[in-house]
């Protein structure tokens, strides 16, 4: 009985599926692809572990994807003869099929090409903050077809690369430093020069308010309710938001500590009747 089963199994794996390709060949192909998949995974994992501290995350991801693709390509090239496929014929057929598929899937191809152009142009990288259309957030992943953005409120947004490529991309952290600005109003009765000095001292005390380029603090305009002082401050792009949030309140507190008040909107109203009465009285 067992012998019969073994004989049946042997004859089954020798069963020809098509043009000399047997089930055994298919099993071998499956095993090769599976082993290649495992090898690619192991290499990717060890690259991620060993280079995580030494490479930027986006560069590491590109390297891992490249190594992964190479391993799988080698495996595919290895199994094609087993499957009885002629690579030359495959390439010709692939070329013709490519044209047909290209026409049929222009959007997909467009996304693919846009992805390649984006990788080459590198207007953004993983971890950057970007604003594209009405989407603003962190770049989580960059694939050949699409870019994944995590918005500031934690939403997952997939942007097709074609959309990304043809849109205005604002990358607020692409440069090393960026500037922000406050308009601070003080009362007309306050000493503007003293206020400017206080604001400069608060800025100077903040480690990430850059010393160079120097901050600019000056009286910008004489407003309806008070004197408007503008403070322009440079900060490292990575710290920009924190510095901006941190400094304004410190400036306000320090000004008030020195007797300088932020004015409320004021309007002086003259009553004509009262004026006449007071004139008559005198």
């Amino acid at each position: 009985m067992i012998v019969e089963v073994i004989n049946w199994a042997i004859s089954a794996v020798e069963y020809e599926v098509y043009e000399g390709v047997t089930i055994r060949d298919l099993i071998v192909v499956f095993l090769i692809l599976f082993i290649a998949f495992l090898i690619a995974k192991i290499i990717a994992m060890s690259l991620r572990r060993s280079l995580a501290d030494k490479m930027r995350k986006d560069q590491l991801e590109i390297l891992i994807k490249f190594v992964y693709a190479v391993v799988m390509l080698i495996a595919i090239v290895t199994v094609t003869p087993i499957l009885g496929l002629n690579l030359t014929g495959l390439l010709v057929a692939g070329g013709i099929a490519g044209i047909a598929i290209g026409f049929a899937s222009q959007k997909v191809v467009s996304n693919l090409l846009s992805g390649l152009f984006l990788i080459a142009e590198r207007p953004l990288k993983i971890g950057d903050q970007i604003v594209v259309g009405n989407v603003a957030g962190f770049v989580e992943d960059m694939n050949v077809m699409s870019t994944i953005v995590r918005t500031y409120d934690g939403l997952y947004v997939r942007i097709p690369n074609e959309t990304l490529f043809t849109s205005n991309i604002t990358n607020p952290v692409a440069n090393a430093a960026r500037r922000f600005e406050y308009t601070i109003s003080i009362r007309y009765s306050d000493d503007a020069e003293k206020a400017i000095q206080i604001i400069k001292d608060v800025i100077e005390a903040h480690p990430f308010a850059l010393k160079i380029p120097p901050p600019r603090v000056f009286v910008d305009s004489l407003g309806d309710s008070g004197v408007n002082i503008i403070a322009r401050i440079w900060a490292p792009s990575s710290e920009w938001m924190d510095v901006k949030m941190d400094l304004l309140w410190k400036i306000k507190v320090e000004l008030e500590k020195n007797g300088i008040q932020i004015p409320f909107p004021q309007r002086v109203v003259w009553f004509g009747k009262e004026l006449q009465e007071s004139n008559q009285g005198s």
Partner: protein
Amino acid sequence: MFGAFRLRELSVELRNLKISVERDNGCFRYVRSLDDSRVEKVLFEDAEVHVNPVEPVNLPKKITNYLYISFRKPVLISPGEAATFYLTFPIEIGVILAEEGIYEDIDVFSFVRPKYALYGDPKGGVIGRYWESDVFTRIPELDPMREGVLELRATNLSNKWCEISKAVFDVYGMKVYYNEHAVSSIAEMRVHSQRMADTSFIDKPLFEGMRRAIELYTARALPMLATKFTMEWGV
């Protein structure tokens, strides 16, 4: 204060700095307070701990690996000549665990206030830890808790006079040495023109017998390439 200790024996009280290690149910509780900052960490095993000056780019958090020293007075060097002078650099003190050659910093603090600046333009420039230094022609006596001595060996390789008013260094490769009286480092600057220079650190103590500090910035695959910084936006 600098040196190697057993964790359980670590205890420092200096000016407004206080470091203590308390035993807590078989664990060790590291507590450090300085001005308004306080750090508290729990460690499960006793270990060797080094307290020494580290590369001064860690506070209030690590955002760069460049040190930007601005000279209060510029230095002029004639064509083809070299000059050695002394600057100061800020001291940050690291508390580093050492176990079988593996180091882990558990705390970094400083008696000086950190400040940062941009060297170059916003697009291609770098953010550096900013420090203003006097220029000394002989080794200055400094408070080793606040300032270290940086010997700068500058060479003018151009055929014009050059005026040096700043130096920017990549702290990967910065070698800090210390003893009980001083903290030091030695660097060189090769000026190619008024707009371009290379800077790098030299691994030598300023005085005989100084101990080399354990560094926090060492992980580079190609140290020879990594430790040199090219100042492309002027000196």
